[in-house]
């Protein structure tokens, strides 16, 4: 007999939660360089994206199709995953199932150890970041090298990604030059001593450093943007060609993929290959799209299907649409909160609006109770999302799931009680008039006790009015309404 222990959640090894958001945000907001880097980068990508999305006459229909395909996929996920497994296996690949980060890391580590390699190259993968695969491999004596340029910058800088698509968005060119000069030589081919901070010079140094890694590597680990269930085809979409090098050169290829990355058929890719590049990099088409089905001759292929909290997300009708996400990061680039705080403040490798709904669902809301509040609910993310995820409504839903501080609960209850009848509300308004005494000299309120001190730290409040609207109405219109 088996015992049902509930749906698997992301385990403690996963990189999906950190310090409370308000605290982490405070530090980021004080960093003026970070603010400038982020403001410039998001404004640039935002404008580019708006331009190329505006070119597509049927964008609204494409967006609806993207949402519908993903919803259909999620509704048939078990069946489609089995279909994917059969297709991959039939084409000579091996499929592994991982409930959580611990299992996935164990599977991948064993696969690498079986090859005898002590180094692997990686092409940018959110799933392996989520499970902390690099750290797990390092613990087993295996060095994992990121080959995506931005990931390389983050890795060499002993840093963590701050954006889904542009992980080094928080770094400027001068900082990148410093990192390359200081770190490249310690782990491989050094950067030229006369390296400047011009983008071509930096790209060239990275190219030469990485070329050595590609040629030496016997094992590669990739993520996947899409998997086609009917054919067992995996796909990686990228801008630099490093992914292609990773996928084709090494003798063993291991792909780690979240179970929601499926599309049912090859035809469905058409929609996403239009939605993704325009939404993410503001390009009409991404420069490199690699696709492979099973193992090719001379190469061994393993696919690790990762749950790590995803079925828990799927089980919530009000939250499951978050699994439509294709990780384009359009929501990050339009989010006013992300623009001020950057990705690290979210404490999860999924930052920004989508992270604020995805992370708490994957870990369970009590593990990430401040993230649903890391939004002013301005709605820009919903408008930008190419698969129409209603992130603001989802945030509000999650806010009702997280544990509330006792003091806040008491305030909210008493305000609701006062608003429960017009008589009680009138009394509350009359009492608030006493506030006029506090600021009567200056004509405004500049200091209030906690929790309202959060307001008066940077904003005044007008004095409560001398005559309430109700009194004015009675004076001018009489009692009968």
């Amino acid at each position: 007999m088996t015992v049902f222990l509930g749906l698997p959640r992301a385990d403690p090894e996963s990189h999906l939660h950190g310090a409370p958001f308000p605290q982490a945000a405070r530090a980021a907001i004080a960093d003026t360089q970070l603010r400038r880097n982020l403001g410039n980068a998001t404004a640039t990508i935002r404008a580019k994206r708006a331009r190329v999305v505006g070119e597509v006459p049927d964008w609204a229909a494409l967006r609806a199709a993207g949402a519908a395909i993903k919803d259909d996929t999620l509704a048939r996920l078990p069946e489609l995953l089995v279909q994917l497994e059969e297709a991959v296996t039939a084409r000579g690949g091996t499929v592994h199932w991982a409930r959580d980060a611990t299992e996935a890391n164990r599977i991948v580590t064993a696969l690498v150890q079986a090859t005898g390699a002590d180094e692997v190259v990686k092409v940018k993968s959110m799933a392996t970041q989520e499970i902390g695969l690099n750290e797990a491999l390092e613990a087993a004596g295996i060095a994992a090298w990121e080959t995506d340029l931005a990931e390389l910058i983050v890795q060499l800088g002993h840093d963590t990604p701050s954006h889904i698509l542009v992980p080094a968005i928080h770094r400027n060119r001068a900082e990148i030059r410093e990192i390359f000069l200081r770190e490249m030589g310690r782990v491989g081919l050094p950067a030229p001593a006369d390296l400047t901070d011009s983008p071509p010079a930096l790209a060239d140094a990275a190219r030469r450093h990485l070329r050595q890694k590609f040629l030496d590597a016997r094992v590669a680990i990739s993520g996947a943007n899409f998997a086609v269930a009917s054919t067992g085809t995996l796909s990686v979409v990228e801008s630099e060609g490093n992914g292609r090098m990773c996928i084709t050169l090494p003798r063993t290829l291991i792909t780690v993929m979240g179970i929601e990355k499926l599309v049912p058929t090859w035809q469905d890719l058409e929609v996403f290959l239009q939605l993704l590049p325009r939404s993410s990099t503001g390009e009409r088409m991404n420069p490199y799209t690699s696709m492979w089905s099973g193992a090719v001759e001379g190469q061994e292929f393993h696919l690790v299907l990762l749950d790590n909290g995803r079925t828990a997300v799927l089980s919530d009708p009000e939250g499951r649409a978050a699994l439509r996400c294709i990780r384009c990061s359009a929501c990050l680039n339009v989010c006013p909160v992300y623009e001020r705080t950057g990705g690290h403040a979210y404490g999860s490798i999924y930052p920004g609006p989508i992270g604020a709904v995805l992370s708490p669902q994957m870990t369970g809301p009590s593990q990430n109770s401040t993230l649903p509040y890391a939004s002013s609910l301005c709605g820009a993310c919903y408008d930008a999302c190419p698969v129409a995820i209603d992130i603001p409504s989802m945030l509000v839903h999650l806010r009702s799931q997280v544990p509330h501080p006792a003091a806040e609960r008491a305030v909210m209850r008493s305000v609701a009680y006062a608003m429960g009848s017009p008589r009680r509300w009138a009394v509350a308004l009359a009492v608030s008039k006493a506030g006029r005494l506090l600021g009567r000299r200056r004509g405004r309120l500049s200091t209030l006790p906690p929790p309202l001190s959060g307001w008066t730290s940077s904003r005044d409040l007008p004095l409560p009015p001398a005559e309430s609207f109700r009194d004015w109405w009675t004076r001018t219109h009489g009692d009968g309404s």
Partner: protein
Amino acid sequence: MRIALFLTCLVDAVVPAAGKATVELLERLGHEVVFPPGQTCCGQMHVNTGYPGEALPLIRRYVETFEPYEAVVAPSGSCVGSVRHQHAAVASGDPALAARAAAVAARTYELSEFLVDVLGVTDVGASYPHRVTYHPTCHSLRLLRVGDKPLRLLREVRGLDLVELPGAEECCGFGGTFAVKNADTSTAMLADKMRAVLDTRAEVCAASDSSCLLHIGGGLSRLRTGVRTVHLAEILASREGS
């Protein structure tokens, strides 16, 4: 037309001028305005902070208070957004109430929508000889899609010099309890909004949401900028200098 005014709790408690202006404006346009005294709050603060249970009686109160009227007008895009997009959903456990909420929501309008779409006016006969910039507010823009209706109304106001607000569609950082729970982030967003307002060299920053105005105005007051925040209704009700 007989129009019910939904004042909103914030206007009631802090800025009654926006409510009075709404009444004066609609009456000047020849309509009968009533103020149903049973009203308190739409419940948005409770829903958005994660207390849908506490909001439910407020939603029931809203529905019962405004059900008898053919049109309800509120000087707040945000509260109308809540009525239209949250009431029926929060009340989904009580299908009868949810249906009634949806019906009342369909008759609830934000002021600029009501003037342009229902009454079909853009020139309300106002006069306001000042340099004004307009902050469109997120919920008016994205929940209600009011588009350029407020600007069309402002362009018809005598003497008004309307200047475009840079980055107008960006959030001012209010966000209800967000302003207190994430005070630092909210303040950083406000700082950029205030800079944009000051760059226009406007005397007045207008909007259709008292909550956003309270936030922007509170910041401008703290910095002693001398720039005032004024609700759209107050400008449209004004006959200054005419």
